[in-house]
């Protein structure tokens, strides 16, 4: 009985620790491999970043159109958009619903062309 327990414990220890080491070895190897590829990516990124620094649109064209639309609606006359600066960088890009919500809100709260009280 005692030797059975010993044998079973040995077996499960060998298999278990073996799989743990195998799994993490593979992960480590994958990371090492990815680092190699990464070096090249980073090199490319660095170059494109430098290029991008010169003068980049920090906003995609759809959003630009949306803003143009909003401005056109609000101003209601002649105008020219000279530049667009993003205010909420992080989440807004990710959440389509949030962007829409904002776009629609702007549409619904059209500023009257003259003060209301008049």
């Amino acid at each position, binding site marked *: 009985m005692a030797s059975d327990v010993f044998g079973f414990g040995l077996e499960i220890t060998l298999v278990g620790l073996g799989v743990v080491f195998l799994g993490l070895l593979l992960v480590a190897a994958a990371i090492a491999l990815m680092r190699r590829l990464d070096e090249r990516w980073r090199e490319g990124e660095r170059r494109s970043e430098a290029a991008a620094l010169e003068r980049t649109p920090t906003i995609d064209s759809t959003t630009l*159109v949306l803003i143009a639309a909003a401005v*056109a609606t609000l101003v209601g006359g002649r105008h020219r958009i000279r530049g667009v600066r993003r205010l909420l960088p992080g989440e807004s890009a990710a959440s389509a619903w949030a962007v*829409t*919500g904002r776009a629609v809100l702007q*549409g619904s709260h059209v500023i009257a062309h003259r003060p209301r009280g008049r």
Partner: protein
Amino acid sequence: METLDDFLAAGALGNLSWGNLGMLAVGVLFLWLAVHKDYEPLLLVPIGFGILIGNIPYATGLGIGIYESGSVLSILYQGVTSGWYPPLIFLGIGAMTDFSCMLSNPRLVLLGAAAQVGIFGALWAALALGFDAPHAAAIGIIGGADGPTAIFLSSKLAPDYLGAIAIAAYSYMALVPVIQPPIIRLLTSPAERRIRMKPNRPVSKRMRILFPVVAFLLTAFIAPGSISLLGMLFFGNLLKESGVTERLAQTARNAFLDAITILLGLTVGASTDAERFLTPASIQIFLLGAGSFALATAGGVLFAKLMNLFSSEKINPIIGCAGVSAVPDSARVAQLVAAEEDPQNFVIMHAMAPNVAGVIGSAIAAGVLLAALR
């Protein structure tokens, strides 16, 4: 070395099939589309990773698969199979949606009805292909372009096709910018695409408060089967608009919506193991879904042209495509197509009206199909 044998028998490598490999590739594709192409990432990242989880092969009996009773995944999947995730997502969407666009332009609501022709066209085609009525209805609802609605209806009418229907619906929603533009261009003339519409008028706060209550009562009386979805949608909207329950609306549209989105996406993805998913039926479902989206787009556009025959204040027929809800992507598509002809023509605010009306429209359609076929 019995333990080793047990372990290998339960292992992934022994059970790997070509189907699983294919699905893993699909999962990676979804993740790539979401992360690199920014196609509906809030949906495709959870679904894509779920596909990976669902297609790691393993011996059954470990109690970890989504179809094994008592497993973690199966417990989290219950919200899909028993259909309560979708209404809670509608609650969050309601707490997020501004219906002002509809309120300031009520006749555009009809475009959201016309686009539902896609649902019934696909239903018909599915019947013709030999699907029985409930399955055909669940396949048709893909044309509603609403993930939660599609999942809700298929959980009731076609649980065995739920994965395929949900994946098809979300895939085509992500592909709306690819599917719609050619159809719009085909069906409209450049002159029509240049029609300018008057800017939306402002809407009073009181009207925005009344709207969810009135709209709920009307739609619920017409189609009680849609109560689960529309009740939650309009309830969420009332929380948002009432002005006195802002903290509830906040939670509904943030923590609540995000948590359900994570669980729904992940488990729907995980439900697509190759054996169940890679079937001839799935291919048919995908084909029917594509047709359904195309037909819905055409329906919306053509109905706008029809309305122009009877009205002096012309509608730009492009915005008809937004009746295919897929909020807000199809409204953006409308804007992009309109801007091709005239960069100063801003139709997106008008397109939001059929867009949100399309959500209501497909929920009503789901209610009718549920009542007729269950």
